[in-house]
């Protein structure tokens, strides 16, 4: 029931918001956002008790990993919706609201369905729903970003479709046209009997396809443009959870491929792409001119770290990767909404245009500093813990050289981020700029940072068990 509500609420909200005007639209927007979050919470509670829940004859299914993703999507969309009034131009609000909920719906659908075919449709849908959000400000640059985003991601996801077709082929070749052959639960059950060469070939297509959506280098080229041109709440959603939805799709198929032909094949590929992504990001993080692009490249870096965790494998590697997805979602969405405020105040997204941020906007600047420290992987924030988990898994699983290289690249990325953050935060304050008034505006991002310290220093009861459970679900 709660699974149906969590999907239906943003969809119905999006449809109603197309026609709603004025105060009705504001109420609907608020209602849809809050209800989605509440239903997501209900799903998480139910899954933590029952292990997994299903709806509509098993078409929709949430296990630990799905619930984890549903919770993250709801959390980040809540943050994005609360922050939207500060950064979305009022002329565009009418277009923003329905597309926002449609975008959230497609992401929730992708992680809440058991059918990998429907998951493909939903992930393609995320592109279609968000392309006009990227172009919300209707500038030349944002139009170009939207076009690149639509074309590259559509082609990428079509490549993933070839992979899906090949998995389906392997399935019915071995077991005939049985009902629900494309359900993930069916695939996992039949996986040991699937022809390994075919599913491995399928995984290559799936990795290139969903890897494009996840922003893995070298398929990442759409990402810095789309993230920097989209309005801040949309960037927060894209970077915070959309990329992880791409990783989620990969993880589902990885489990099937591993059961068919052993884990070495997928692990090697994930390690290679993970390392490439971190290296690409580390290079570009040295001299970005635009701070939203800087944050986008940092997302590529962290998706690379997640891939390393999946590639190292084991309970610590996979559990660490799952935790890292959540940590990154919290830290990066906070950073993007703050960058939206900075851009609104300074009127520019260029790093050189922003000086003395801490003096000019003490609240926003202070939060920005804390979130930057978090994203660099410093304690007491959660990213430090998940990175330690991932890299220790790497050393323990005999991937010492890869783990060491990854750590070195991470230090490079760290230095780049630090250098640019320093340029923005200190220096002469800009005189004519005032901060968003009141400490109340600091509450949402403050809460996100607080959650990050929880995953960093004091794990809430049940978190360790949940991560273990998810890692075992994925065949570890």
């Amino acid at each position: 029931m709660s699974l149906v509500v969590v999907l239906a609420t943003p969809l119905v909200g999006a449809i109603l918001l197309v026609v709603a005007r004025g105060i009705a639209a504001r109420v609907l927007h608020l209602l849809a956002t809050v209800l989605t979050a509440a239903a997501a919470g209900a799903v998480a509670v139910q899954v933590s008790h029952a292990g997994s829940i299903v709806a509509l004859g098993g078409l929709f299914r949430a296990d630990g990993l799905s619930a984890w993703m549903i919770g993250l999507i709801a959390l980040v969309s809540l943050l994005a919706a609360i922050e939207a009034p500060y950064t979305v131009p009022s002329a565009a609000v009418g277009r923003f609201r329905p597309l926002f909920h449609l975008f959230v719906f497609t992401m929730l659908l992708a992680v809440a369905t058991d059918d990998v075919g429907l998951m493909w449709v939903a992930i393609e849908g995320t592109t279609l729903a968000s392309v006009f959000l990227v172009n919300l400000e209707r500038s030349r640059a944002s139009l170009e970003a939207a076009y690149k985003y639509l074309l590259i991601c559509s082609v990428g996801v079509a490549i993933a479709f070839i992979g899906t077709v090949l998995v389906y082929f392997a399935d019915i070749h071995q077991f005939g046209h049985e009902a629900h052959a494309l359900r993930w639960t069916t695939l996992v059950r039949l996986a040991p009997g699937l022809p390994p060469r075919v599913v491995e070939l399928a995984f290559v297509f799936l990795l290139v396809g969903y890897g494009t959506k996840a922003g893995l280098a070298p398929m990442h080229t759409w990402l810095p443009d789309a993230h920097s041109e989209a309005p801040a709440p949309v960037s927060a959603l894209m970077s915070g959870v959309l990329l992880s939805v791409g990783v989620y799709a990969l993880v589902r198929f990885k489990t099937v491929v591993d059961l068919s032909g052993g884990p070495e094949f997928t692990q090697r590929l994930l390690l290679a792409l993970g390392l490439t992504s971190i290296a690409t990001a580390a290079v570009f993080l040295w001299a970005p001119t635009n701070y939203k692009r800087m944050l986008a490249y940092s997302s590529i870096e962290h998706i690379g770290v997640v891939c390393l965790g999946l590639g190292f494998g084991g309970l610590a590697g996979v559990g660490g990767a799952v935790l890292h997805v959540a940590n990154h979602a919290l830290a990066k969405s906070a950073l993007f909404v703050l960058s939206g405020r900075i851009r609104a105040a300074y009127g520019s997204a260029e790093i050189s245009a922003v000086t003395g941020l801490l003096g000019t906007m003490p609240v926003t600047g202070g939060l920005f500093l804390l979130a930057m420290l978090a994203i660099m992987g410093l304690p007491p924030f959660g990213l430090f813990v998940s990175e330690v988990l991932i890299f220790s898994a790497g050393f323990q699983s005999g991937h010492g050289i890869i783990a060491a290289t990854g750590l070195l690249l991470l230090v490079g990325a760290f230095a780049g981020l630090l250098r640019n953050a320093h340029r923005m935060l200190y220096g002469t304050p800009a005189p004519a700029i005032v901060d968003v008034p009141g400490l109340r505006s600091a509450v949402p991002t403050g809460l996100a940072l607080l959650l990050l310290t929880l995953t960093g220093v004091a794990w809430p009861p049940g978190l360790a068990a949940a991560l273990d459970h998810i890692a075992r679900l994925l065949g570890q």
Partner: protein
Amino acid sequence: MTAEPITTATNFLAFLGLVSTLMIVWRQNWAGRRRLFVVQSLLLAALATTIAVYGHRAELFLVAAIVVLLKAWLIPRILGRMAAGTPPRPVAPGRSAGLSLLAVGSLIVAAYVIMLPVTTVSDLPTVGGIPLTFAMALIGLFVTVTGRDVLGHILGFLMFENGIFGLALLATYGLPGIVEAGVFLDLLVIVLIMEGVVLRIRREHDSIAVDRLRELRG
């Protein structure tokens, strides 16, 4: 050994599909390319019908009808609207079709090699066409990547999608209905969004050549 009729028919249709794809690469005239795309889509509808008859998959008749409606009529019409106002000109100025055809020829070889794991395990009567349709998809990808304007990109993407559709038909006799429906819907929405984007680009840049899209770097 005489081949079964389904093998002969699907192999022949897949071969014709590949020929139509090659001709799209060879033709430099936009209207001619669009007509060839219609031919390619009709061939795929015929392929779906063939499998519906010999493979006893009644739902593929519906799929074939949708392909005719969507890919041979509606989408080409939208493409025509998008191109209105663009003067007919060589699609890739300064490049001869000969070089493209050479690249495409090696893609066909690559398609056979890449699909080896599938063709060696499969005992389907339609297995012969699988590398041919995959080659169609690869060539579509090639046209997308080398396209110099928005129309080239979208045509390449549609060819790519057609190739994958043919591959799915031959390898699996059609995907589950919900996926098939989602694919068609996605495709239509992509083309409609592309049309919107093309209109905006044309207004902003007075041209749809992608060389003009160069504001975002680094």
